[in-house]
Every structure is written in structure tokens, then in C-alpha cells.
């Protein structure tokens, strides 16, 4: 069966420090991969999605970037965190078929102080 893991689960970082959140998927190949941010009252905001290695689409201009160095690995990064980057980040995957179910990871709480 397929599984998705992301880490770290909780992170407290000072303003201006770098960020790296990592996500891996097991049990499937060539998945679509996603990073979402969940903020209170704002639902789930799609940040990035990827349909293949090295292919990243950015949905929202921001201080973050994403990379997909391997087929089942998706990394969310920042060179210098802002206070506004605080939030709950969710990695997710789906098969390549249009409209298929998206499966979410456990989430990572980021607090920028």
C-alpha cells in the first residue's frame, strides 16, 4: 500500500533562517506531488505541485520554493523565513489520472519567531 511521510512534524525557526521540509511517498511511482498550506479561516492553499522530477509549478508568489530531486521526494524550502511563513504545511500525492483522490501527509507545524 502507499504511504506518505513528511518531516519534521514541528519546527520553530527564527526570522531569516532557512527552511527545509521533506516529504516522501512509498508504494507508487511517478505520483503527482503537492505542497499545501493550511491557515485558520483560509482553508487549504495550494503552494506547489509537481508532475515529475524537476517539474515544479508555483501557484502563489511567495518566499518559498519547492524541489523534486527524486520521483517520490518533494522538498519545501526557504532561504530566509518571514513571520508570515508560519503555518501548517501539508504534503500530498495523487496518481496522474485527472480527478483522482489526493492523499495527505501528517502535516508540519512551522512557527517563525
Amino acid at each position, binding site marked *: 500500500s502507499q504511504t506518505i511521510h513528511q518531516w519534521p512534524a514541528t519546527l520553530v525557526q527564527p526570522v531569516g533562517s532557512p527552511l527545509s521540509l521533506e516529504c516522501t511517498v512509498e508504494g507508487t511511482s511517478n505520483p*503527482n506531488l503537492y505542497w499545501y498550506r493550511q491557515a485558520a479561516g483560509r482553508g487549504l492553499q495550494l503552494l506547489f505541485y509537481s508532475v515529475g522530477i524537476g517539474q515544479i509549478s508555483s501557484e502563489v508568489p511567495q518566499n518559498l520554493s519547492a524541489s523534486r530531486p527524486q520521483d517520490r521526494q518533494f522538498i519545501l524550502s526557504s532561504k530566509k523565513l518571514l513571520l508570515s511563513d508560519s503555518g501548517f504545511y501539508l504534503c500530498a500525492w495523487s496518481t496522474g489520472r485527472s*480527478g483522482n*483522490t489526493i492523499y*495527505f501527509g501528517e502535516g508540519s507545524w512551522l512557527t517563525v519567531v
Partner: protein
Amino acid sequence: AQSVSQHNHHVILSEAASLELGCNYSYGGTVNLFWYVQYPGQHLQLLLKYFSGDPLVKGIKGFEAEFIKSKFSFNLRKPSVQWSDTAEYFCAVNAEGATNKLIFGTGTLLAVQP
């Protein structure tokens, strides 16, 4: 661009009451529609989805949703809620051909009082 609106941000019901959560989307083409649920302390998980065919979709735990194309709506219903239905509910839409890009609404927090 697609968007999803959930008009009820916070709903409080007593057990056995009926539930209807509103969801409207904006997109002129063919869409796939979803309801996801997040129980306290758990992952987001799929509740039900509509791709085509019968516009009345039945999901897990007695939930159902009706796709009304003319109203661009996909409301979630349950005839009798339980305390265990307390959760946050998200409506989502994926436009056909959009490479599985799922756009979510802002969520509705449902609290069921025993």
C-alpha cells in the same frame, strides 16, 4: 481561475440534527468535486467525490452530496449527525485537464453537541 466557496465557517448542531454544508464553485467547464474531512488530530481524508454520472453521491459514514450543475453547487448532507462527526469539512474542485490540481474551500468547522 477556479475558486470554491464554503459559506458556513462554523456550524454547531445537536446530535440527531440534520446537516447541510454549502459549497459553490466557479468554473465553466467540466469539474470533479470532492469533500474532504479532517477529524481532530487526524489527517485530511476523502469523504466522497463526484466525477460523472449520478449527481447524488454517497460517501462514508452516511454522508452524501448532490451536484447541481446549474447552481455550481455540491452541498454535503447527512440526515442525522453524531458527536463523532465533529470535524472540519473541506469542499474541493478539480477542473478536467488541470493535471489534478485540487482547489479547496476555506473549510467548515462542525461541532456536534451530545
